[in-house]
């Protein structure tokens, strides 16, 4: 397959970026998208040029490190799929593919397609946990969790922290990311106890970090590699309102 690429190249946060054109002539359709980029980087290196910097690690869709805008869509054309799980069979011979980094204020570009998503870590640090020290735990079966509770908590807990929800949101909101964590714990008896404090603190941190506000366009769930439900956002608001009323 012949593939034309238009890739965002940017030296660092403080310089301007621009699109550059490349062409690959021997792309195999069984290749993953990132292997196609590997191929490009090999060609660039051989010519003595600097390869395109992009984030990736596990390449099996679970670590959440990869993530770029492909033809203007977070993680590319397949719904609920990470960039690394996208294969070139989703494209046709002769296609032009635009590749850009997630362009969100709270994710500054480090280089080319690499962005800094540490804001998401900060939100977790604000309260995304059950405050239990190592060695404090009671016997596991002393806390009963119904099958439904466990399954629905898992649905929310499956988030891989890739940031596609923020990138695809017209408001650049991190509500799905934050809501998923709050919902996970709100659905489990272990997490209920400190739900109020957790929710207030995480939501306020999200605001401080200048993520946008959710307006329920529901785009995030469509691009979320784990298909996390937008209802977790409503659940976050419910927990937030409940916490505010209690105060």
């Amino acid at each position: 397959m012949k593939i034309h690429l238009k890739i965002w190249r940017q030296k660092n946060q403080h310089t301007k970026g621009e699109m550059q054109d490349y062409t690959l002539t021997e792309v195999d359709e069984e290749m993953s998208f990132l292997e196609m980029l590997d191929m490009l980087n090999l060609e660039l290196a051989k010519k003595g040029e600097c390869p395109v910097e992009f984030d990736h690690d596990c390449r099996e869709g679970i670590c959440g490190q990869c993530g770029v805008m492909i033809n203007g869509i977070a993680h590319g054309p397949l719904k609920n799929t990470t960039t690394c799980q996208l294969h070139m069979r989703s494209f046709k011979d002769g296609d032009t593919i635009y590749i850009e980094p997630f362009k969100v204020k709270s994710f500054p570009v480090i280089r080319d397609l690499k962005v800094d998503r540490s804001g998401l870590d900060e939100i977790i640090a604000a309260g995304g946990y059950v405050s239990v020290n190592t060695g404090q735990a009671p016997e596991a079966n002393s806390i009963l969790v119904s099958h439904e509770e466990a399954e629905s908590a898992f649905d929310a807990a499956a988030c891989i922290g890739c940031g596609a929800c923020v990138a695809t949101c017209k408001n650049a909101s991190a509500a799905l990311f934050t809501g998923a964590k709050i919902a996970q714990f709100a659905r489990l008896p272990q997490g209920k106890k400190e739900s109020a404090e957790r929710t207030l603190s995480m939501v306020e941190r999200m605001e401080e970090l200048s993520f946008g506000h959710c307006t329920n366009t529901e785009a995030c769930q469509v691009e979320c590699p784990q298909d996390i439900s937008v209802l977790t956002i409503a659940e976050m608001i419910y927990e937030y309102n409940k916490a505010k009323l209690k105060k």
Partner: protein
Amino acid sequence: MAKEIYANIPEGDLKDKWSNYKAQAKLVSPNNRKKMEIIVVGTGLAGASAAASLAEMGYQIKAFCFQDSARRAHSVAAQGGVNAMKNYQNDGDSVYRMFYDTLKGGDFRSREANTYRLAECSASLIDQAVAQGVPFGREYSGYLKNRSFGGVQVSRTFYARGQTGQQLLLGSYQALMRQKENGKVSMYTRHEMLELVVVDGKAKGIIARNLDTGKIERHGAHAVVLATGGFGKIYYLSTLAMGCNASAIWRAHKKGSWMANPSWTQIHPTSLPQSGPYQSKLTLMSESLRNDGRIWVPKAQDDQRPPHEIPEEERDYYLERKYPSFGNLAPRDIASRAAKEQIDAGKGVGALKNAVYLDFKDAIKECGKETIAERYGNLFSMYEKITGINAYKEPMKISPSAHFSMGGLWVDYDLMTNIPGLFAIGEANFSDHGANRLGANSLLQACVDGYYIAPYTLQNYLSDQIQVAKTDVSTEEFYQAEKQALQQLEEFVSCKGNKTSEEFHRELGKILYDKCGLSRSDEGLQEAIKKIQQLREEFKENLLVPGDVEDINSELEKAGRVSDYMELAELMCLDALTREESCGAHFRKEFQTEDGEALRNDEKFSFTSAWEWSGNPQNPILNKEPLTFEFVQPTQRSYK
């Protein structure tokens, strides 16, 4: 000179050793703890859990990882589950049985005391994870659910769908973030350790490179913990993440700490086969699939028919045939080797004839598609994403690929290497799995090391360091280490050859997979060593790294890792060559029973090989830690 080495195993009966240790371990008072710094490299399950636990105790932690967030470490990818002795199923499980299963699974090549401690601490891990909010699978009654896993006859595996590693890691990552918020942990993400700094014989710090700027940094501490995972990526094609590497432990090795059993690599039986030459990694499909899937190949060679056209009587369910009592749940090394046998005999399936079938037809017939979807739904959809094939309708194609390093830095019972103050935990050390790791024991070991062992043993070490001031990073030792690191980076960049490190890595991986992979031989290993030496020479002269040292440069990062692999690969071959027996994942063609099973030699090889760096990768020194079995009589492993 080679020496006999000992592991400081506490006295007493097997089941009392760890409690005796804890009872006698020295402590550090809370007001002293806050003055002490600990560096933890790696934020996977082992690293994050150790860092969080130590921070909770009051120590100041500096946590390093090369990823952009601690949550991305490769523990995240473990799918199947975590073993623990709870005996919730009342199926005859006990700490002793779990210990014995692990020891036997490892072909009696691990320490009794360490393995027993692993089984002993397993139950509390489940308690801890549940308290943290890890959403393990539940019965409708609300009680925890179990599944069975390869190599054992009880159900002791806890799981969170097919993402158990992710959920456990998030638990420890969140605990780590909580301590970051408390100011007890400083995070250094996108940092790679380049050198270990040893001052007066003790580990006192590291040299790290900030991957975002290319700047070299010095970091001092009272102790250093390496939790940097395994190095199966040395085979290039493996189930590991692209960034997984041996660099931290290899550089520590070159500073004097021993590498134990480096050639023992687990080749996982159920990964997806390679589909082309461009391939960068092989995706693992959880071993738990073997609970319901049946593995087979066509009886005839070169059978071109699609799977559904091959009638039952022309299929060879070779695992069920050869190992009737364990069948498809035979341990990984055996399942992998059996698959390779079939592939080598020309019965492989798929375009490259490099795979075997894993069939769910009977399971779907028996328990319905919905049940199968609930158990493995995410694995089936992952399979479809990668291959474009719907596994509810036709069998999966799987093949063996490099997965887990049983070998690693040598550590004593305290998980401390032979360099005082340098600890290695999780997959980075060698300790608990012997020559083969049982499924779902990896998450367990990482957690147990991090949550339950390191906090005691580090404290025991630190108790006589309270008078020692904070490490001064402006000393000669730091200067030299930094200079050394920088010099190497500059050499890479100034080499200006015409082969990228990735290309070298592929070649190296191929040599290792062919000669030092599923089966090894004297001849093959000798040949591999020669090839590796040649390749290493070529690497020195012909490496191409574009870009600069003091800048973001992913090619430079790779070059450093491949450079370490070039040396480690030779050590792996030497290790495999000198071990003239077959055990677990280490299968020497010369040493097998009549029906092709591993033939151990307990008289001559009941020891751990702890290799010492001599300054030259061709002549490492072999030290031996004898393995004595006081409580268990090693037997011939049989899964028939």
